[in-house]
């Protein structure tokens, strides 16, 4: 455990170092443009001339301006510190100021996204599990549906999203929560379906034969063998599923009015050219995903330990 933490920290530290080093070349052009406007002498002096010169040359010729790249308002690549500050400004600081649920707080937006994620996850896993049961029980359903489940994942959901929203409002579903959850479940159901089909099929011929010698009923076979045998698979797919549901919720926030949620923050950040807002929302999303996956992982370990599985 501590060994893992140590390695993660080391790798993390080296990523931060590389990141800091990369900031200079990534931001040098913007930094020079800004310096030029303040009247500083830049070599070469005009942006048009600089266009075809490599960043390394620019850095070599304008050493005194490299540092400027680390404090830009609109960096191409912000520094980790800038991202951290932005994250803190929109989360921790908000909490300290007692404005946790303000619209400027990422906690508020994260909460909105989390709700869609939750409903999408619930819907997606239900579809996935029910579908898997149907597929395992009926060969016709398997042969008909399975290829289409695969094809469905090749369809870019973003293309369907606007239609889903308009259609669901036409059939009388108010609000944008449902379409968001639907889009989220679209990405979530597939890993759960595939995992559960595998899991429900995981009993060996011998384990099935044993129940046959007891002349067990179909329900007994399902409850006493297929279900317990599928649990490890279920959790593995739930972990993939919840991450997919989160991505789906964020995707679903783009065409749903971009009003609130992490997806909306990303879009608005993009529209107003505030890269820091994008980076902060991006990291918030990944952290949220990490937390959700960890929660399921813990539940898995608890349950599987009770079921006597080795970790």
């Amino acid at each position, binding site marked *: 455990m501590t060994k893992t933490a140590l390695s993660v920290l080391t790798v993390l530290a080296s990523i931060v170092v590389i990141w800091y080093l990369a900031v200079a070349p990534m931001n040098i052009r913007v930094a020079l443009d800004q310096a030029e406007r303040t009247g500083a002498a830049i070599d070469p002096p005009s942006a048009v001339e600089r266009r075809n010169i490599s960043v390394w040359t620019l850095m070599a010729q304008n050493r005194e301006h490299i540092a400027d790249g680390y404090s830009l308002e609109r960096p191409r690549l912000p520094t980790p510190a800038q991202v951290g500050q932005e994250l803190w400004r929109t989360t921790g600081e908000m909490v300290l100021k007692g404005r946790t649920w303000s619209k400027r707080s990422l906690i508020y937006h994260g909460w909105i996204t989390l709700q869609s994620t939750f409903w999408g996850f619930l819907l997606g896993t239900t579809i996935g599990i029910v579908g898997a049961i149907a597929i395992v029980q009926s060969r016709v359903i398997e042969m008909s549906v399975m290829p289409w489940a695969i094809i469905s994942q090749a369809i870019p959901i973003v293309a369907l999203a606007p239609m889903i929203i308009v259609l669901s409002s036409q059939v009388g579903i108010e609000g944008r929560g449902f379409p968001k959850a639907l889009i989220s479940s679209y990405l979530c159901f597939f890993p759960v379906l595939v995992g559960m089909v595998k899991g429900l099929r995981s009993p060996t011929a011998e384990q099935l*034969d044993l129940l*046959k010698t007891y002349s067990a009923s179909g329900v007994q076979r399902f409850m006493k063998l297929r279900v317990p045998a599928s649990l490890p698979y279920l959790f593995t797919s739930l972990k993939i599923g919840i991450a997919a549901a989160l991505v789906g919720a964020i995707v679903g926030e783009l065409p749903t009015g971009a009003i609130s949620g992490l997806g909306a923050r990303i879009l608005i950040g993009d529209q107003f050219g505030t890269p820091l807002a994008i980076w902060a929302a991006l990291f918030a999303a990944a952290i949220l995903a990490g937390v959700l996956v960890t929660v399921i992982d813990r539940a898995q370990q608890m349950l599987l330990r009770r079921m006597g599985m*080795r970790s």
Partner: protein
Amino acid sequence: MTTETAIKAENLSLTFQTNDGPVHALKDVSLDINKGDFVSFIGPSGCGKTTFLRCMADLEQPTGGSIMVNGVSAREARKSRAYGYVFQHAGLYPWRTIGRNVRLPLEIMGYPKAEQDARIKKVLELVDLAGFEKKFPWQLSGGMQQRASIARALAFDADILLMDEPFGALDEIVRDHLNEQLLKLWAKTQKTIAFVTHSIPEAVYLSTKIVVMSPRPGRISDVIENPLPADRPLDIRDTQAFLDVAHRVREGLRAGHSYD
């Protein structure tokens, strides 16, 4: 003493269709097993021992001939839970403790809870696994797992026991011990036992009847009535009578191989 027939196979054939062509696992096999018999099946690998046992258990559908168990079809016998089956591999459910593995058939057959507990206790003692109820299969050695799977087959009341190489994974000493236990159990309960093994001494030591099988196609090449007395201490195996029977089995077996 009138002997009733427990298992009756007549011209039993079973052909598997594989992509390499048909495999004749059993061909025209006829055999009568009386109630209370202890019958061992021995023969080279792939000669159809397991297949034969699975036909008795209605786990495999014969492609020819007929098989009757307790006077009814194998299917009906299975539906009426007429037998307990011990598989070649222990096949315990890894998510159940030893105790709950043994409980499985009792749950399915709807025994009352108190009786389940009593039976589990009894059979686990019988196979020397008392105190291991709460362990999971992987926490036990291969031999202990095999014993648990035997306990599972003994837990409910079936008067036929079908055992497919139950002691294959055990070392000689443990095996001797379990052989003795099995004989005692058989003597006490008067169950009918069909027992597959690779070991000649084991077959001779345990059975009232030894069925020697040979492969391609699988058929019965010899049926040996065992003349040894019912009471068999372990060192009966050093007697000449024992060695004679063993010799006859070995000769029958050798005939099924292509060596020499």
